[in-house]
């Protein structure tokens, strides 16, 4: 629906549409939580003030968030390495993939929480356990998506590779990997969300430290406001990570997004 608005008016309309709900929600929460009498649902104002106090003024970021972030990055990176590595292998060597399928099917359907005690059994309660859990649980969507991505090579492309005698290495670097990238990123996006969730959970059980521990500990000692500040920080943190991820994705897959946009534009 094209109106004859000037460009800045149109941009303003867009901004309003995107922001009215979050703003309204925030205002409503502010008002209603302020009137709340429940011990467990403190006023938003108090929570935000406390968030500022605990996390920024008193260095909570450095003390609790940074260690979490480091563990998360380590675990996620490991998940990507394992997921892509095995994904390429299993994707290209079909007999192998089908042979180990019962094992992979079983491994990825085990609820991660069930693995926690086992991980503690072998890795203890420290960072090794946390990173191992994050990596093992997050790698499955990446693995599966990589397999699909690697296998979806167009047969025409295969013929091109064969007739021009493209070397194995070049095939891998210039065809299979880029071809699989969109799928790999789709899997990695899911993997990231899972990584964050696993990170929080393992920190609730492992050695002290990290945002998961903070939230759990605050709940157990009935410091409800502190617990809420943990949730707020977690929300912001997760959101920022996702934005970062999306920026990275747009960079790496610029050709893919541009190509899709072109195809959609052409068929519109």
């Amino acid at each position, binding site marked *: 629906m094209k109106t004859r608005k000037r460009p800045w008016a149109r941009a303003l309309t867009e901004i309003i549409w995107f922001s009215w709900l979050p703003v309204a929600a925030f205002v409503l929460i502010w008002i209603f939580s302020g009137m709340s009498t429940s011990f467990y649902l403190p006023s938003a104002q108090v929570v935000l003030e406390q968030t500022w106090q605990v996390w920024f003024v008193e260095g909570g970021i450095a003390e609790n968030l940074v260690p979490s972030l480091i563990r998360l990055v380590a675990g996620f990176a490991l998940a990507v390495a394992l997921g892509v590595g095995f994904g390429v292998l299993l994707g290209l060597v079909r007999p192998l993939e089908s042979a180990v399928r019962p094992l992979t*099917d079983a491994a990825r359907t085990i609820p991660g929480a069930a693995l926690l005690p086992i991980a503690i059994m072998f890795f203890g309660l420290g960072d090794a356990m946390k990173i191992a859990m994050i990596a093992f649980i997050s790698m499955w969507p990446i693995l599966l998506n990589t397999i699909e991505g690697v296998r979806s090579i167009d047969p025409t492309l295969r013929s091109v590779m064969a007739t021009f005698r493209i070397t194995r290495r070049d095939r891998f670097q210039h065809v299979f990997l880029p071809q699989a990238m969109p799928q790999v990123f789709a899997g990695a996006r899911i993997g990231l969300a899972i990584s964050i969730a696993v990170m929080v959970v393992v920190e609730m059980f492992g050695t002290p430290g990290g945002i998961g521990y903070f939230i759990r500990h605050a709940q157990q000692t009935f410091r409800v406001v502190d617990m809420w500040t943990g949730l707020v920080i977690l*929300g912001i943190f997760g959101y920022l990570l996702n934005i970062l991820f999306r920026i990275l994705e747009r960079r790496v897959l610029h050709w893919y997004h541009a190509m899709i946009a072109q195809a959609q534009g052409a068929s519109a």
Partner: protein
Amino acid sequence: MIQDVQTRPVGALRPARGRVRIERPRPRRDARELLIQTGVVVLAVIVWYLFTLTPLAQNARMPGPVQTIVRFGELAVTEPFWVAIGATVLAWALALLLSIVVGIPVGLAIGRSKRAQDSTHFAIDFLRTIPALALVPLLLLLMGPSLGMVVSAAFLTAVWPVLIQSIYAGRLADPALHQMARSFRLSRWDRVRYVLTPDALAFIWPGLRLAVTASLLSTVAAQLIGAAPGIGSAILLAQLSDRTDSLFAYVLAACFLGLMINALLMWAQRKVLWWHPSMRDRTK
């Protein structure tokens, strides 16, 4: 992994409740594949057994395959075992149902309107990144270690894939099909039933798949964190009382549950999406 559609010879048409279905021949290599897979599983079990002999496993008191199976058998005849399984399945199913009932209509509605999409864009983006399991401590405070707490946590995890895929469905469901339906003057109900729903379903299905597994994972995790009745707390209890064999037995149970749910999912997928192009070319 989607398995091959089975059995009947090519071209055999068989009406199934009013719908025509074309079946495909089972590929010859199925038997051989199965043999290899069984062999690999046996190998894995042997490796497991050998691993339990190592000092690392001995220290951790890791049970071997035989111990685990035996313990599993012992537990399987006790009531607490089935109570735990039942509680888990119940919570899983409730959370999934809630996700569908809330996620699909809301998602479709949002998907159809650009303004609605714009309005909810930030909210959805932000809320979906909050791991529902981080909310378990809060839910514990509000609801205690109850079924409601577990269902809430699982719902808050599983609803997002359903919602997001439903938004896609609302947005992208093939307009040509809509036009065709209207040109044939199908009644609104018929339209929904025969054209819009299958078409939208193809979009929504991946979200449902994710929701099914996400619901199970969150259910067990919430039970673990919050010590609510179910497999999760049974595992926690086993660990606290240092019964590693029970621990492994329950993990095995969780694994079986997951596999059964997965199989259910595959069956449902075949029934529901047999017509979809991605299902037709199953000769991998």
